[in-house]
């Protein structure tokens, strides 16, 4: 009896371990440093944000040197996408200001993320964390999202309330075999 229950217990443990273990054993375990270097996706809560900080004034300087040639002085007037909201009434729906990164983005961490992963064109990855914080501060201030004396860092950036934060329609929860829109025959 005893050996039987030990066997059953062993099977139980083996079964639960089996569900957790790799089937093929192919692939290599990356080092923590490798993961840190690659992991540039910044969540809405900013948990992946690196140390560093930047001010609006610092960002203005970085912008002039690194961004203005393509995006224009003060975020407009050149070929690359506009980065400053158009003139509008103070009570205008922020959605109506258009697809401008520092206004449309639902989270300020997303502004940081995009500058960090995609800019400047052909020199991506060349900005320091401090420079990205500073540029984010400058662009958010340019669009009247944060005050001129704000300092952006891993603590303050996720707390910034973006004007379009609650302006997005939810996506439906996907499930296999679902129709696109319940009740819609098409």
């Amino acid at each position, binding site marked *: 009896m005893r050996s039987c229950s030990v066997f059953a217990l062993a099977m139980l443990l083996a079964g639960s371990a089996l569900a*957790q*273990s*790799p*089937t*093929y054993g*192919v*692939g*290599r*375990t*990356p080092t923590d440093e*490798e*993961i840190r270097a*690659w*992991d*540039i*996706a910044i*969540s*809405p809560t900013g948990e992946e944000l690196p140390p560093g900080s930047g001010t609006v004034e610092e960002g203005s300087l970085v912008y002039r040197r690194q961004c203005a040639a*393509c995006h224009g002085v003060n975020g407009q007037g050149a*070929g*690359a*996408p506009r980065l400053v909201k158009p003139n509008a009434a103070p009570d205008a729906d922020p*959605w109506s200001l258009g*697809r401008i*990164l520092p206004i*449309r*983005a*639902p*989270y300020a961490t*997303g502004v940081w*993320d*995009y500058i960090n*992963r*995609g800019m400047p*064109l*052909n020199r*991506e990855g060349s900005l320091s964390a401090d420079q990205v914080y500073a540029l984010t501060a400058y662009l958010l201030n340019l669009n009247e999202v944060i005050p001129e004396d704000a300092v952006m860092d891993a603590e303050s950036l996720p707390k910034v309330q973006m004007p379009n934060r*609650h*302006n*997005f*329609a*939810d*996506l*439906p*929860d*996907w*499930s*296999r*075999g*679902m*129709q*696109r*829109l319940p009740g*819609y*025959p*098409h």
Partner: protein
Amino acid sequence: MGVKRPDRRRFLKGGAQVAGGLTLGAVQPAFGQTPENPTFIKGNEELVLYGERSPFVTSMRMAHPPGGRPSPDAYGLYFHIAAPLQDSVGTITPSSLHFVGTTRGGFIPEIDPREHRLMIHGMVDRPLTFSMDDLKRLPSVTRPHFIECAGNRSRPQYETVQETHGMTSCAEWTGVLLSVLLKEAGVKAGGTWIVAEGREEVKGASSIPMEKAMDDCIVAYAMNGEAVRPQQGFPLRLLVPGFEGIFNSKYLRRVKVVDRYYMTYNDYGHLNRRDDAEGAALGMLIGPKSVITFPSGGQQLLDRGSYEISGLAWSGGGAISKVEVSTDGGRRWVDAQIQGTAHRMAHTRFTYQWTWDGQETELLSRATDETGQIQPSRAQIAEYFNVAVGRVPGMDNSIQPWRIANDGSVHNAIV
């Protein structure tokens, strides 16, 4: 890279000279063959190593949208190329003619596959890095799937099906199911989304629900029997069957398992406003959709008589279960013949043999998918949503009418 690109112009010119020689009688037929015998395409190293189509076949892609901003633009922001569906046969789009959609990443990275790595990390038991060789050791799947750009919209000013519908294509994709890689890494409880990231210069990242990631997404290293083309994401592309084009991340280098919707730049850029939940729902999944590719806008019927109407149908909801055709502007619908097997989330070829009586008429097609969704007309959409005819919420899957004029010319008839 030691092989030189063939010089097409010189090649054509050379062929013309040979042809000219024949008609002038400079080359005598040896065995009394007729002068109609073809000239020869001279064999060369390029044709031995990697074949070419006939110089008489001139089907080409085009920048999209026609008359729109330049593609690609100076900032690589906009690089859309439409497939010539008017010349399509069967269900597979040749890799050279497959549509290309690239927003915010219009430069094609040149990636050495020996150095390429895919990392799976985040909320997993064992982060893993795979080389291309590693991936090819794992169980593979080979499946036909379409990819369609969210901007594939018919507009009244467009003439041809390449303009109205050319931002969709279908290839046979080979790779490893993403679920295999995720199980190998072991998804932790609470891992409800993934963020898939490419290696191009903006490292485009898209959020995908875990349920979809575990269902049928493919980490593809091959299309149409050879390596994925650079414009399609060489060496690795994520296929997210049935979702709008932008989810199908090219140059895939990283899949991060996370516990929430990240709403990345790629994600929120195509999301709808709060008061447009219907548009959001109709923008994520594609179809059901179909279009007649022959006869289609810009083509010409030569004479009254018998013609095979031929077209493509597809849906993000699964397999196409039925395609109907109308040859009288929508008054009467008849079932078209589905050619071969209708695969899930794949272009499906339909045909219908029709006799044109020489009178003006309109040709339409209507697809139904396995979930029972039926392709709507623009009038039905307008009625359902109480909007002006022509406004189509979400992705445009409306019925495409082609008008056949008395002279046999074919025209876009949408309003």
